[in-house]
């Protein structure tokens, strides 16, 4: 058990951001540096500075430029964006649904995105003006379509759109879409491996194009959620309480749902269904620094990004040259760590966050 001074430091908000940012930066550099060819951190700094600010290369090995700028940096960046998106969306959904067990996939958005993606793989379609982007674009479209159907359906059940109704509707759609995916897998011959590989999630060989694809969704979604942090705080005390506090619950709820779904859909579209990040990162942050969404969201963003970069690093180096699916690693690393943290917290008698 840490000393009081260390504990107060750990719990203070400034240190929270410092720690989270440090974690993210270390993960970023580690992700770029480590691999079959080792790139020194100093060289990475020069290279990034060269590309961002146009400074001279200062004698860095030109072959590194290709590795860093064309391969590793976009990959790490994508992993970071996906991790950040999932963690922020997870935090928002948990707050909105007042359930620490909710995750970005609870409402069926990811299943929708997956159905879109698997369909592209299964039918081997390539829309003429999209070429290689067919899969992510179809996938995002499918995910956004899904959340609208879920909300409309929930509204048909009950006009006031209670979160319980939304959760139930989400579960119904998740199961149904899951079944559709299973059906397509069952009917698949050749592309089985490709589909399973996509479903397990990966950020390899995506390049800058995919970053351009996810970035606008990430920015819009995250910004929308962060400016609604107070509303999320209020709504996690229940919808009626939030209304009493002055929140226009109906409108804000829809906004949060859509923003979270955009984030989830975009993340799933570019990388497949990577589990665990969206559930555990917000939970973890809440355990350490409390449930205030004004801090929870940005901290989850940093921690989620760092976490997924590190797990991606592990997935491609642990039995190199074979790459493991990143979704497997997130759970294999994340679950035991999380279990230990939970156990220790319980022993200290503070209960779940």
């Amino acid at each position, binding site marked *: 058990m840490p000393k009081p001074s260390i504990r107060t430091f750990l719990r203070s908000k400034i240190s929270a951001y410092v720690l989270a940012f440090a974690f993210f930066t270390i993960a970023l550099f580690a992700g770029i540096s480590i691999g079959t060819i080792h790139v020194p951190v100093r060289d990475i700094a020069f290279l990034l500075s060269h590309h961002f600010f146009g400074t001279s290369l200062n004698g860095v090995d030109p072959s590194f430029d290709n590795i860093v700028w064309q391969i590793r940096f976009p990959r790490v960046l994508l992993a970071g964006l996906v991790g950040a998106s999932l963690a922020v969306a997870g935090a928002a959904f948990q707050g909105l649904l007042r359930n620490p067990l909710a995750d970005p996939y609870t409402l069926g958005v990811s299943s929708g995105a997956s159905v879109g993606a698997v369909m592209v793989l299964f039918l081997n379609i390539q829309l003429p003006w999209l070429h290689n982007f067919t899969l992510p674009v179809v996938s995002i479209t499918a995910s956004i379509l899904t959340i609208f159907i879920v909300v409309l359906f929930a509204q048909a059940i009950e006009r006031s759109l209670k979160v319980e109704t939304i959760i139930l509707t989400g579960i119904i759609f998740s199961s149904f879409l899951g079944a559709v995916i299973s059906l397509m897998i069952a009917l698949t011959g050749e592309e089985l491996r490709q589909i399973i590989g996509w479903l397990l999630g990966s950020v390899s060989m995506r390049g800058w194009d995919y970053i351009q694809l996810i970035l606008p969704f990430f920015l819009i979604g995250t910004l929308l959620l962060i400016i609604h942090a*107070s509303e999320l705080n209020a709504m*996690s*005390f*229940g919808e*009626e*309480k939030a209304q009493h*506090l002055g929140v*226009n619950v109906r409108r804000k709820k829809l906004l949060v749902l859509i923003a979270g779904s955009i984030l989830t859909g975009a993340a799933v579209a570019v990388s497949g269904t990577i589990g665990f990040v969206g559930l555990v990162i917000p939970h973890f942050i809440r355990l350490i620094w409390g449930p*205030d969404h004004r801090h929870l969201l940005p901290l989850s963003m940093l921690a989620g990004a760092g976490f997924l970069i590190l797990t991606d690093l592990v997935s491609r180096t642990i039995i190199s040259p074979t790459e493991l699916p990143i979704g497997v690693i997130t759970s294999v690393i994340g679950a035991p760590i999380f279990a230990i943290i939970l156990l220790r917290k319980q022993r200290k008698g*503070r209960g779940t966050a």
Partner: protein
Amino acid sequence: MIQVEHLSGGYYGKLIVRDMSFTVQKGELFGILGPNGSGKTTLMKMMSGILLASSGEMWIKEKRLSDYTSKELAKRVAVLPQMASQAFSYSVKETVSLGRYAHQSGFFPVWREEDEQAVKQAMEQTGVALFAETSLEELSGGERQRVFLAQALAQEPEVLLLDEPTNHLDLSFQKELLDLLKKMTKETGLTVVSIFHDLNLASLYCDRLLLMEDGELHKLGIPSEVLKEEPVQHVYKTDIHQRPHPEVPKPQMSILPEKMLEDEEEVEVDGTCIRQNGEFIALDAPILLKTLSAGVTGAGWGWHRSFVNRRVDKNYWHDSYKEDMKQFLRRYGFDVNETVGMMTAVHLHTAAYRLVEVEGISVFAAVTAGVGNAVDVSRAAEHDRAFLPGTINTWVFANGHLSEEAFVQAVMTATEAKVKALIDKSVKDPLTGSQATGTSTDSVLIAATQRGTYQSFAGTITPLGQAIGKAVYECTVQALENGGIGERKK
């Protein structure tokens, strides 16, 4: 401040509240009462804007409720629901700070000094400032309820709506909360509308009460108008007994538990219950008796089991004689709370007892009489206030069910019988030499088993009055004779 006109509403097309109309003034503490399912909470939800009214109108500060935006309404009206749920362990300060939501604006709201002040003040008023950094999960239900009250107060509302605010609070915090609300209505003009389950609390604190029945207004008015036995029994469909509060001029309701068979078994108080020694005479009743007395302990109305007449020296003097009496009772194993204690200076062997029965009602009387300080009441002004020994202690035990009138009449009848005994025994006021009517320290006790036949009256010619008169008269005469008074005269 609040104006409700023909308001109706409910869930899923089913009307739960029908045609409610009332107004609440600024600074008023307005209570809503009614049995379970009478629509109190539904009415409250409509008033707080959670539930839309299906017909009728409501105005808050001359503005239609439906014209308010969520934030505007939250600046005017704060709500403390019955039970607030929370899924995450926010700290107390974070929770209270959320009360400022409606006062903030912009995408990235700035926390201003006035926000901080409002939060601080709310936390201090509700006594939760102490655990500002504690997590909500670690608090008890009552503490949590106070945190949510602080949150509501941090909204700086003009109207506070509460749904059974004292539900999770213990006795002292119930009082503190209601005292605080009352104070705020008087000092800051806060308007409070609250649902109450406890009729007595509502009676004590509310300026006006609204009694609901089946979604409709049954009665509206000040507590003494609304809390009458008839409407309350009608609405709650149960036996209720109304009595005034002992200290405050407000009505209080008592529940009458259904009588068990054993509560109906007749008991009789008579001479067999008496035990006597040199220091005291005690009567141990088999059950608690309803009493009206002027004893040293157990005075006024009460329910008592033991009755003690203690002999003290004629020069007895004690600064706090009540405390001394209590210690005496404890020493002899009496329960102070269930004992009527009296003092006398006469020798206890002079005590007289009588059981008299008239038309099926029996009365047992016990009297000790010393008349060293006898007084003619008509010339009492001539007496200085010196203490002289001698006291007539009259105990009357009625084996019947007496009304309150009967108790008071019993006191009169017993007194008249005592006076007549003094006249017949020619007891004189030693100072004036005129006929004495009593002594300066007389005491009386009327006790009844409250079982058996109901006795509405105890005037001198009613059966009960006749029994009391005969028993007390004969006892007093006997006691005087035992003490050698009167015989000397013969």
